[in-house]
């Protein structure tokens, strides 16, 4: 019988061999699929097993993980949730948004930069902890912006930049949401909270500052002015352009008129044109320049780029070349040009920073668990939008807007403010968007702001000067008082 027993031994080895092959297939080849299957709850459980890093700004803690013990040990808590939610996003059982998502690898400690530390912790048997993310936001300004928008019941966004570095000092979107409702370790509850927000017609989950684009209205005239001044060195703030009461749009029967049918006196200097926001004057400038030059100027301010700050920013666009009539309307921000509030803040910041547009960023630094700096922001120039001379001329024009023009509501005592209003028609008969872009102090700019108030949320005849400018003033004041 020894022969058959030996054959049986071979058969048993084959059986074990098959099992081993199959396990290799499962745990080496198919492991990633099995790990990633959304029915595999392990990643969900694992999210609560380590202490996630904090998110801070200006010395304040905006989000941290609190040890609750038990299966879902570390739970995420947000202070002033709705104020910071558009930037922070949320940390939900199976997903994350905003900075929580963009900086996830630092926060959960899996970033390669943290590898050495993690290995040391493993050896010394320290509980794993993620790195802290410090944001560039200025809490006082952030709160001021949120309060101003929220109290008036408006929908809108505010972005403030440090013009010299590109650091985002304020980023608010209203209505907002409480990220804490989605941070609970109960998937069903978190999903219910999310679905409710997702279906809300006021779109609280959308970060209006960067995720959507809107018609910029007259704030775009700063770009048109920049292009016009750059196009010819001999032009300056006192150069005059035609400014008829009504301009027949080339190739059409329609007339372009000024806001509320006001007159600009037939011919105006650039300074006056911007100060009183004369539509026909800017239409003439654009027609003089042509589409390509206007488009190139806009691109130098960052229009057309997809940025990651590290939140991804919707692409702003001046629209395609659709002929002269369209170009005339593009010049005043009323054609198919669509801008994010961040993009308009970059326009103001570019003018403020002697023509240099800095790349905007939200993360100031990454701090390891032992308070050591792992990474810090390095300000980067995006492009030179205009020459320092032209920047100075634009600044002069924008100061005039706030001192004697449509933007007087943005004045701050003892500080020179430069700005530009915008009131963008959205559709025939529909209420306008109200815009205001500005920077201060004009001589040595510390902050550039774009305020956007969505159509209809601030009354039917809202103007940038009346609705948006006061908010910009409060935010600039808060940054300067910091």
């Amino acid at each position: 019988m020894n022969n058959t027993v030996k054959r049986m031994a071979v058969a048993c080895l084959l059986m074990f061999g098959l099992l081993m092959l199959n396990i290799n297939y499962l745990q080496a080849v198919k492991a990633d699929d099995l790990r990633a299957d959304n029915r595999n709850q392990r990643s969900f459980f694992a999210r609560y097993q380590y202490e996630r890093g904090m998110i801070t700004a200006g010395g304040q803690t905006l989000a941290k993980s609190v040890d609750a013990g038990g299966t879902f040990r570390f739970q995420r808590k947000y202070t002033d949730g709705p104020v910071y939610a558009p930037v922070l996003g949320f940390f939900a059982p199976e997903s994350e948004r905003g900075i929580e998502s963009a900086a996830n690898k630092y926060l959960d400690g899996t970033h390669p930069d943290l590898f050495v530390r993690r290995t040391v912790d493993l050896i010394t048997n320290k509980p794993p902890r993620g790195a802290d993310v410090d944001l560039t936001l200025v809490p006082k300004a952030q709160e001021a912006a949120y309060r101003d928008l929220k109290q008036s019941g408006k929908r809108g966004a505010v972005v403030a930049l440090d013009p010299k570095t590109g650091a985002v000092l304020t980023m608010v979107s209203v209505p907002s949401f409480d990220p804490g409702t989605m941070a609970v370790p109960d998937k069903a509850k978190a999903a219910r909270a999310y679905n409710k927000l997702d279906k809300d017609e006021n779109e609280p989950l959308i970060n209006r500052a960067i995720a959507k684009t809107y018609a910029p209205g007259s704030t775009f005239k700063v770009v048109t002015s920049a292009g016009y001044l750059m196009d010819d060195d001999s032009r300056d703030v006192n150069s005059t352009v035609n400014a008829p009461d009504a301009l027949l749009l080339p190739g059409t029967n329609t007339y372009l008129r000024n806001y509320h049918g006001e007159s600009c006196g037939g011919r105006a200097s650039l300074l006056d044109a911007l100060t009183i926001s004369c539509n026909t004057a800017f239409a003439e400038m654009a027609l003089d320049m042509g589409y390509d030059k206007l488009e190139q100027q806009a691109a130098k301010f960052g229009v057309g780029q997809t940025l990651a700050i590290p939140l991804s920013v919707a692409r702003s666009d001046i629209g395609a070349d659709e002929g002269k009539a369209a170009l005339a309307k593009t010049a005043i921000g009323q054609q198919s040009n669509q801008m994010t509030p961040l993009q308009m803040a970059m326009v103001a910041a570019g003018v403020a920073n002697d023509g240099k547009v800095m790349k905007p960023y939200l993360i100031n630094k990454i701090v390891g668990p032992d308070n050591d700096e792992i990474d810090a922001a390095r300000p980067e120039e995006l492009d030179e939008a205009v020459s320092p001379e032209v920047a100075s001329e634009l600044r002069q024009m924008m100061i005039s807007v706030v001192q004697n023009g449509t933007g007087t509501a943005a004045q701050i005592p003892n500080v020179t403010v430069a700005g530009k209003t915008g009131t963008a028609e959205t559709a025939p008969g529909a209420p306008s968007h109200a815009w205001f872009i500005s920077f201060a102090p004009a001589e040595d700019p510390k902050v550039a702001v774009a305020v956007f108030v969505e159509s209809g949320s601030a009354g039917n005849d809202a103007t940038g000067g009346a609705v948006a400018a006061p908010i910009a003033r409060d935010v600039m004041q808060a940054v300067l008082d910091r």
Partner: protein
Amino acid sequence: MTAKRRGAQLVMLSFAVAIVMVAYANVGLGHDGQVPAGMLGYGLGLAGLMLAAYLVLAKFAPWADPLILPLVTLVNGLGLVMIYRIELDSDLASAGNQLFWTALGIVMFSVTLIVLRDHRALQRMTYTAGFIGLGLLILPLVPGLGREINGARIWVGVGGFSIQPGEFAKLALVVFFAGYLVAKRDVLALAGRRLLFIDLPRARDLGPVLITWVVSVGVLVLEKDLGTSLLLFGAFVAMLYIATQRTSWVLIGLLLFLGGAIVAGQLFSHVGARFDVYLNPSDPALYDREFGGSYQLMQGLFGMGSGGILGSGLGQGYPQLIPLSFSDFIFAATGEELGLTGLMALLMVYALIVERGLRTSTAARDPFSKLLAGGLSFTLAWQVFIIVGGVTNLIPLTGLVTPFMSQGGSALLANWIIIALLVRMSDAARRPPPQAIQDEGLTQVFQR
């Protein structure tokens, strides 16, 4: 002459206990960040048990294979550690219970070695063993005595304890097969006529095969115990093959099995459901099906996949997510925490136990021992193949215990008795034959 190698065995046994102790400490460190409080008592307890087993073995079976006991100790110990670990996150697992049954298993191992000085006594009990086996198999069907747990009626309640008589039936039936086949093997191998290329046995010799087949299918139908029926049938066919050395038996067995499986799949929904799950485990419709769905299988696969090559580390996985991770699915829970590396090592240890058993079979001097040792070893291998293959979706899943690892007293006792029998037979096989007096005479001649 074969050496006794008792010293080597003690070293290996200590090594096995040491590995188990390290694993035990590891669970505490991984789960709570500190060494478990009961470490010393637990360690001394396990070491004491193994020392007792070693001493009994050294006294009553001194020539036994030195590898078998340390290998089994390692698997049993790792099973204890896994159950202890699962207990931390699940109310159903009970390491204390399992430790008690392990102790009882060692007692049964010792008692078997002490009482059964010559295993050939079992040959004389061939038909008694057969009747006991069938009786035990049918026991759960007795009204008032049997209990249905998790959909299978394979339990018998005795006072506060529940036992699975099937585990002991398996043992008795293998003894019966060995005795019967030794008696009939010549007839089975030689009589009969040739049809095409297969040698067909005579109908009256085929009888026992058919009876076993009917009983297996009967168990499958009435107790919904697919695993045991597959195990018994496979064991019988394998032993038939060893005894008769005729491949035709294997083919006939396979045909009968396939026929039975196809008919059962058509007739009984729970058999068909297992097959659906086997073919398409990740299908969402099957996954969410309330009865006979793939939820448990997929959770096990998720566990093993998440463990990957090195595993999450003991105490750091999520065995509570896998239903029955302490019994049928303990292999998947081990795979999650010890990874591919750990499972390969574990399968290697099982393979070594089986191959040492089969080696005992080839070394045995009488046909009954050869057949019994071969049958018991194959039963172990076959059982590991069925349950591990099922959990890893290599074959359709049927409920069976993972030998020495799954929580459960009956299986542990029965398996320790199997090991005692193997050890007893290896002692007999390796014991040097009594020296002939003539040899001594020759030696004296040379001395002169």
